């Protein structure tokens, strides 16, 4: 059984339909990427899974349970966690407080402490900045904080929305290394990216989303070789 299964999902913003019946699945332990251009519906998909948007039609199954109509907080409690687009950290709170907010739904203090140490191993730079307000961090550090905050919720599945957005190439590589490492430690990842090359290099499988429907799917390596994908997303060929 897939850990996350999306069946025939339709989502609209008012009169404008953003998703035209997409279906895909994510298996436990995988990194799956959704790639596509601006407006293809990638972020819409993630937001709908997280319970921030309500679909018109379709089903979202998480670990066999239907979560389509659950509220955002109930979904977080099931350890299906989103790293939002544009980071959205709590700017006036310190790094430490941001991390503590990430563990908001957990009450096992010792395990939260363990997560905190795990996060510091992944992002040693955050440990140096514990007392600094989140808003004063650099863009890359903020992205790390956003990922770290999501990890504090002890995710089973991590939904990542454009983690590379607005970052320098060297930082993008750093973030992707961390994504691989998180995955190796047992977290399933659904990654939404415009940077198709990077995304396909870390993902096991991928789906190509175009104007609200899935055009192509396959193993990352196959997709990276596909002439259509190369032309549209990997800069020709």
């Amino acid at each position, binding site marked *: 059984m897939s850990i996350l299964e999306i069946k025939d999902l339709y989502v609209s913003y008012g009169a404008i339909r953003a998703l035209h019946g997409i279906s895909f699945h994510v298996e436990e332990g995988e990194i799956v990427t959704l790639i596509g251009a601006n407006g293809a519906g990638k972020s819409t998909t993630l937001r709908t899974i*997280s*319970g*921030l948007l*309500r679909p018109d039609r379709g089903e979202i199954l998480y670990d066999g349970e239907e979560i*389509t*109509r*659950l*509220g*955002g*907080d109930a979904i*977080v*409690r099931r350890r299906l*966690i*989103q790293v*939002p687009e544009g980071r*959205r*950290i*709590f*700017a*006036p*709170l310190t790094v*430490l*407080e941001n991390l*503590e*907010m*990430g563990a*908001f*739904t957990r009450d096992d203090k010792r395990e939260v402490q363990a997560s*905190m140490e795990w996060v510091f191993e992944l992002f040693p730079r955050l440990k140096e900045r*514990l*007392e600094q307000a989140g808003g004063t961090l650099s863009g890359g550090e903020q992205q790390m904080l956003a990922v770290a*905050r*999501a990890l504090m*919720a002890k995710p089973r599945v991590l939904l990542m929305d454009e983690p590379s957005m607005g970052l320098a190439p060297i930082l993008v590589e750093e973030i992707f290394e961390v994504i691989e490492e998180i995955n190796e430690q047992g977290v399933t990842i659904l990654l939404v990216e415009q940077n198709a090359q990077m995304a396909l290099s870390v993902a096991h499988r991928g789906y190509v989303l175009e104007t609200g429907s899935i055009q192509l799917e396959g193993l990352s390596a196959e997709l990276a070789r596909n002439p259509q994908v190369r032309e549209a997303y990997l800069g020709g060929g």
Partner: protein
Amino acid sequence: MLKRLKNPTGYFILGGLAIFLVVQILLSAGILNNFWRGIIFWGAAITMVTLGLNLIFGFNGQFSLGQYGFYAIGAYGAADVTYRWVHEDPSGVVVVFFGLWLSLLLYALVSVLLRRFYGITVMTKFTAYLLATILAFWVAVKVLLPVLGPVTMTLLGALPEAVSQQIVFFIALLGGAGLAGIVSFIFGIPVLELGSDYFGIATLSFTIIIKVLLDNTDTLLPFPEMKGARGMIGIPQWTTWPWVFGTFMLVVVVMRNLLHSSSGRTILAVREDERAAELVGIDVNWAKILPFVMGSIFAGLAGGIRAHDMAFLHPQSFNFIQSFNPLIIVVFGGLGSMTGTILTGFIWIFLLEGLLRLYLPSGFETWRFVVYPLILLLMMLLRSEGLFGEYELPFLRRSALPLRRKVASEESEEVA
């Protein structure tokens, strides 16, 4: 340094007691006359209203103009209970007291019931709670009142008058505050779903609706004793300094504890970024309803206190222009600063209703709404963080977080 700050609670209690005693002595000795007594009580009432607004707007980020509506509900609600009581009618006491508890009971049932279904729409939720409230008060009026009315009358009548009076006053204050809380809860369910700006407009209309209803209490509503636009007279003047001090301290302590709790965290997180708050697993609806209801309860409580000091209520004192007063005070004192609100609230009433009224020629009131906005504008330009900025009394300051304290103590050990 640490030792000196070790027990801010102790200092807070001592300071509070000192203020209580000093004012009590000054009042008993007659050094503060009725005018200044009224000013102090008024200041306390306005400050409670404003603390409520600061919770809603300053700490939770929901721009509200409805505070005076809830203040009015509390004032008229509490006044009606005591008015009826002094006219040998226990209906106010019984209906308000039991109606409140019944509503809370039914709310608990409704929320358990609603939790069984996924994807409940806001309007369904609103209707369910509204029906629960109507049912609770219907039962209180039709079923409980005929039975418990005479019983209450005999029970309370058996007590010495001074005691029964205090009990009735307590129930009246509780009732006023509770009614404000219930109305804000029902109103808040659909309205808090709107964004902050729309919420502001909705709360403004709420204040206007309340004012219109109060103008017509004797014609549209079945409360002839409130006398509509002529103003309600004959409210017993039961507010004393211990009551003012007690309710004020209650509001301060409850608000402080709420903000320091984990619910307080959620309230602040929603202000900073609603989307992010939802993504870390905060129930955003609840994190907005809770401060809104608490803030309205504070306003309702202040209304009861104020009504029983003035002994006269007029709908005109609750019109929407007035509801800008707490807003101005909050901005002056600093959004999200309890200390600032408390100090500014008292200074506001002391200066504008006290000193200036005594020493300025009588026409100055007309100029108020020219002067206030100008001061507000200057304030925004020169000191947008409020008069007192980030400063909080040690007792009200957010306590250090556990892990941070650990870091701090490690450092101090190194120093030692």
